C-alpha cells in the first residue's frame, strides 16, 4: 500500500480556551490549559458534521491527485461522531464525493487509535486485491454532542473535556501502486471499556429524558449519561504501559533505530502525555510534531491533522514515519511507513 495523498480540514471558528474564564475559576482553567497544552482549537458551527469536514478534505485531495472518482473503490470513515445512527457516514461521503457504485463503503467506530487501525484495514483490502484505491476518512466533532462547546460549558466536570477536544476531518488516499508500510501492530484491552466512554444514547441506555439529567457516576462525578467520561489516571497508566512497547515492536519490525526515523507522529492526547511519552521513549523532541496547542485533541483525526499541520516539508522527500494511536476501547496500534512524493494539501478551513 502506498500513501498517495493526505489532507485535513478544520472549522474556521477558532476558540481560545481561555474563553472559559468567564464561568470558572481562573486557577482551574489555567491548570487544565497548562496540563493539556490546548491554547486554542476549532469548533464547528451547529449543523456542520464530521462527515462535512472529511468531505471538504477529500474532494480537493482527489482533484489534486488526479484520481477519477470512478477509480476509488473503498471509503472507510472512522469516527465516534457519525451523522446518523444509520446509515454509516461513509455513505454520505460516498454520495457527496460522487464515487462509483463498485465501492466498499463503511464506518468504523473508533477514536484515538482510529487512523492507525483504519490504515491497516484499508491495507488489508488492498493486499487482498479487492481494492486498488481507497479513501480513509478520519474525523471527530464532538462539540455540542457528547461534550459541551466551550462557551456553553457551565459545569466543572465538563470543563476539561470542553477545553481538550477540537473538531477536524481528514482524508488519506491509499493506493495499491507501492509498498510503503514497513511494520504494523494492533491490540485491544476491553477491561478498560469504562475508562473512555459515553454510556448513554445507544442500546445499553437508550434515548430517554433521563439521559439529560445529572447523576453521580462511579467516580463520584456528577455527569449526564450522554457526557463523555475520560479517566485521566487510568488512561495515563494504560498509555505508559502500552505505547513504549508498541514503539519497540514497530522499530524492530521495520529494522529501524530511533535515529533512523524522521517523524514520530503520536495521537495528540494531551501535551502532558506527549511530553511524558517522548521522554520515556527517548525520542528527540524535534521529531515529535505537536498540533495539540492549536487544534486540541481531535481524536481519530489527530495523526493525519498533525502531519498536515506540522510536517508539510516531509511529504515530498523520502521519509520514515512512525505513527501511533492509543485510546478508546481501550485500543492501540501503529505503523512504520516509508513514503515519498506524498500529495499533501495545505490545511483546509471551512
Amino acid at each position: 500500500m502506498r500513501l498517495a495523498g493526505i489532507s485535513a480540514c478544520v472549522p474556521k471558528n477558532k476558540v481560545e480556551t481561555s474563553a472559559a474564564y468567564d464561568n470558572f475559576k481562573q486557577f482551574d482553567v489555567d491548570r487544565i490549559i497548562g496540563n493539556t497544552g490546548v491554547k486554542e482549537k476549532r469548533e464547528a458551527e451547529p449543523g456542520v458534521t464530521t462527515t462535512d469536514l472529511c468531505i471538504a478534505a477529500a474532494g480537493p485531495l482527489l482533484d489534486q491527485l488526479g484520481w477519477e472518482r470512478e477509480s476509488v473503490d473503498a471509503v472507510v470513515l472512522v469516527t465516534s461522531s457519525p451523522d446518523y445512527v444509520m446509515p454509516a457516514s461513509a455513505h454520505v461521503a460516498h454520495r457527496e464525493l460522487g464515487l462509483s457504485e463498485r465501492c466498499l463503503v463503511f464506518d468504523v467506530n473508533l477514536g484515538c487509535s482510529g487512523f492507525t487501525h483504519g490504515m491497516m484495514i484499508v491495507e488489508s483490502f488492498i493486499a487482498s486485491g479487492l481494492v486498488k484505491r481507497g479513501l480513509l476518512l478520519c474525523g471527530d466533532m464532538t462539540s455540542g454532542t457528547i461534550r459541551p462547546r466551550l462557551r456553553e460549558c457551565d459545569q466543572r466536570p465538563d470543563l476539561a473535556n470542553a477545553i481538550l477536544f477540537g473538531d477536524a476531518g481528514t482524508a488519506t488516499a491509499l493506493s495499491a501502486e507501492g509498498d510503503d508500510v514497513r511494520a504494523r501492530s494492533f491490540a485491544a484491552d476491553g477491561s478498560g471499556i469504562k475508562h473512555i466512554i459515553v454510556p448513554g444514547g445507544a442500546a445499553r441506555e437508550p434515548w430517554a429524558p433521563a439521559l439529560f439529567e445529572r447523576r453521580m457516576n462511579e467516580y463520584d462525578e456528577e455527569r449526564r449519561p450522554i457526557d463523555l467520561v475520560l479517566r485521566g489516571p487510568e488512561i495515563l497508566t494504560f498509555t505508559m504501559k502500552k505505547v513504549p512497547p508498541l514503539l519497540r515492536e514497530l522499530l524492530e519490525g521495520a529494522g529501524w533505530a530511533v535515529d533512523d526515523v524522521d517523524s514520530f507522529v503520536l495521537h495528540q492526547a494531551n501535551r502532558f502525555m506527549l511530553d511524558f511519552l517522548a521522554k520515556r521513549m527517548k525520542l528527540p523532541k524535534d521529531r515529535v510534531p505537536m498540533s495539540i496547542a492549536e487544534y486540541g485533541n481531535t481524536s481519530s483525526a489527530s495523526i493525519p491533522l498533525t502531519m498536515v499541520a506540522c510536517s508539510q516539508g516531509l511529504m515530498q522527500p523520502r521519509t520514515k514515519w512512525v505513527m501511533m494511536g492509543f485510546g478508546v476501547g481501550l485500543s492501540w496500534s501503529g505503523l512504520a511507513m516509508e513514503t515519498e512524493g506524498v500529495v499533501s494539501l495545505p490545511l483546509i478551513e471551512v
Partner: protein
Amino acid sequence: MTKEEFVKEMAEAIMVSPEELGPKVELSKFEAWDSTSVLQLIAVLEDAGIVIDPNKIPDCKTVQDVLDLAGLK
C-alpha cells in the same frame, strides 16, 4: 526513589513547599490537589519504576496515605 524525593515532587505538583507536606496533612486543603497533580504523581512514580493503582488515589486523604500507596517508607 526516597520518601523525601517523592515529597519534593509532590510539593511541586500541588504547588506548595515540601515543608507544608507533613505526613498527617490533609490533601484536600490544597487547591492544586486535583486530577492534574494526580497525573503528575503517577508519571513521577512510573519513572521511578513504581506502579500504583490509579483507582486507589481518590482514597488517599493525607500525604501519608499517598506514601503508603506508593510503598515509600
